[in-house]
């Protein structure tokens, strides 16, 4: 059993915290893991991507080969489409629909959403709206992580434990907010799968 995830977003959107929660949960589950990240220049508002590979067996390459990723998990709609070549034929796209516009030539939003709709297995979710409703827009990446769980081999309970560990220093309120966001994302994905 293996899960190859392409995590996408824009520098500063916090995809690295999704990656580290997943990574830690995998390790505690005695699974093998490799997780390649983007550091450096492109963290200044550029496109960033992380390849997360979780498996029962040792993982060789730090990068996912083209056409084999099980899911693209993106916190930004255009960034989800950028990595389409990595997705396997029956792979899932799980993406936030709120655009991050930090460039003057950001494409027409409708066209991006239309392009996503064209994809056979795509879960598009307004994570920012869900997170705001719960209490803080910044928890939108936990909504996205939750939405990806139906496609990941680690149980949601174990990921929740990871969220608890990562946010515990910031107090109980922050932990609960993030857990709630996570569950909301998961429920959305289960209902719209």
């Amino acid at each position, binding site marked *: 059993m293996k899960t190859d995830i392409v995590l996408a977003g824009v520098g500063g959107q916090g995809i690295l915290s999704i990656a580290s929660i997943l990574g830690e949960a995998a*390790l505690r589950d005695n699974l093998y893991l*490799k997780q390649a990240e983007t550091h*450096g220049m492109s963290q200044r*508002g550029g496109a960033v991507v992380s390849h997360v590979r979780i498996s029962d067996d040792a993982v*060789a*390459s730090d990068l996912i*080969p083209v056409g084999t990723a099980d899911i693209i998990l993106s916190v930004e709609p255009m960034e989800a*489409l950028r990595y389409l070549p990595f997705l396997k034929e029956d792979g899932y796209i799980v993406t936030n629909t709120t655009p991050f516009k930090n*460039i003057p030539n950001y494409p027409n939003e409708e066209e991006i959403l239309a392009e996503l709709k064209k994809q056979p297995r795509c879960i598009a979710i307004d994570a920012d709206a869900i997170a705001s409703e719960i209490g803080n827009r910044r928890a939108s990446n936990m909504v996205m992580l939750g939405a990806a769980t139906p496609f990941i081999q680690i149980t949601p309970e174990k990921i929740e434990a990871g969220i608890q560990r990562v946010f515990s220093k910031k107090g109980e309120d922050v932990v609960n907010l993030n857990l709630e966001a996570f569950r909301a994302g998961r429920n959305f994905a289960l209902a719209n799968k």
Partner: protein
Amino acid sequence: MQKNLFLGVEAIGQGAIDGGISGVYAYPGTPSTEITEFIQESELAAELGIRSKWSSNEKTAYEAALGMSYAGKRTMVCMKHVGLNVAADAFVNSAITGINGGMILTVADDPSMHSSQNEQDSRFYAKFAMIPVLEPSNQQEAYDMVREGFALSEELGVPVMVRITTRLAHSRAGVERSEVLSSNELQLPSDPSQFVLLPAIARRRYKGLLEKQKDFEKAAKKSKYNSITKSSDRSFGIIACGIAYNYLQENYPIDDCPYTVMKLTQYPIPEKMLSKMEKHCEEVLVLEEGAPVVEEAVKAAFKKDIKVSGRLSGALPRDGELNADLVAKALGKEVLKGAEIPDIIVNRPPALCQGCGHQDMYKALNEALDTFSKGRVFSDIGCYTLGALPPYKSIYSCVDMGASITMAKGASDAGLIPAIAVIGDSTFTHSGITGLLDAVNDGSNIVVVISDNESVSMTGGQDSSALGKVESICQGVGVDPAHIRVLVPLKKYHEQMVETFNEELAFDGVSVIVFRRECIQAAAKRMRKAKKIKDNPKKQYS
């Protein structure tokens, strides 16, 4: 055993701590920066008293590490690939002096230039200086090789290079730690002339280094990190170096590869291993990250007329990073194509943060230069290099750290007046000071802009060696204090900034204009750290 989830760079930092270092020396540079940051933040390193503050540049870092080794202690020095150009004088000569306490140079190459000006391959440098290289294929090996590397350095009597590339540096995996080795006692070299490279001594030591080459090769041959796995199919063999070994395994799990595989992760390349490959294989493919260093060596070593392919032959691209797909293609395997990227997707290049002081500086500079022809601003390396892109399009050069001041001087000498240099505070103390001294001594007509955000920002906000010292350094170098101007780059001071530019552009001589406002990201980081210390005052922070 409990595994730690480590980035490659973190595995190296932990390996050095557990390997018994007394100090790490480094100047930041992607993708090597987090090695030193890991040690700076490690509670164990603080307990053990491992020194870890940033150096002003890679040369000062390298020499300080060599001094620590002279005193008998184990030490590591870290840098990105181009940093080794800066430290090259010390590096090459340190192979001849040799070491006393174990010394590792960890150098991080950046194939595909994710965050660099070039993709030079540090293995060339190691070959040039004639020292051994360890090139881990994964995070666990990175940890083990560094931890054990100090003893190897002590055994062989020279510094050992650990070469990694961006992918390994910035990828996480589970890593098992081993026991922490104790550090060395202070003990000077037994031969007091060892480090005195006067010609007569240098000649003797250089001969010694040449003689040692066979020991280095022997060490590589018996290294547990090098191996040959033979196959009965003699038609084809593969030499996989460093991380390329993973890409091979992605295509053929180790026990399942139909061909003979030589794993090469410790250099110099053992000749005996190559002759085994020559005997056993009718054709050889070399998989290596970076330049065709091994491919060339293999071609030269083989006496039989055997086809050797790799990056030189065109089986793999000559430039850029490898991956499992490129390796699959070179192996003649079918590669999936994947879906197309939709046409509407546009690039998202990096940009200066909203509210960054460099922006205000560039706006004023552009306005002041509006009446002059274009092409007279020389710049340097840092966040401010993004001033080359729209909407600013202010700068016309970015070559190597410090080159802004010296290139502006040369262009001004040639008659391009006014000529302007734009440099950051950290780049200024890294390599700008000596160039400024040249300009002062020569009475050059240049305007030097020091865009001082009080941090090394491009690499993530490390402490700048220049903090609080910029004006006094300029004065010390001999710039007339009347032409050292200090401004705050904020929109409300725009007119004043333009006016100051106009005044200094009109002055025939060396002017320095310092624009000082803390980087917003560094300020945020500083406040997060202050809060951490307030919340937990007993914990040690570097």
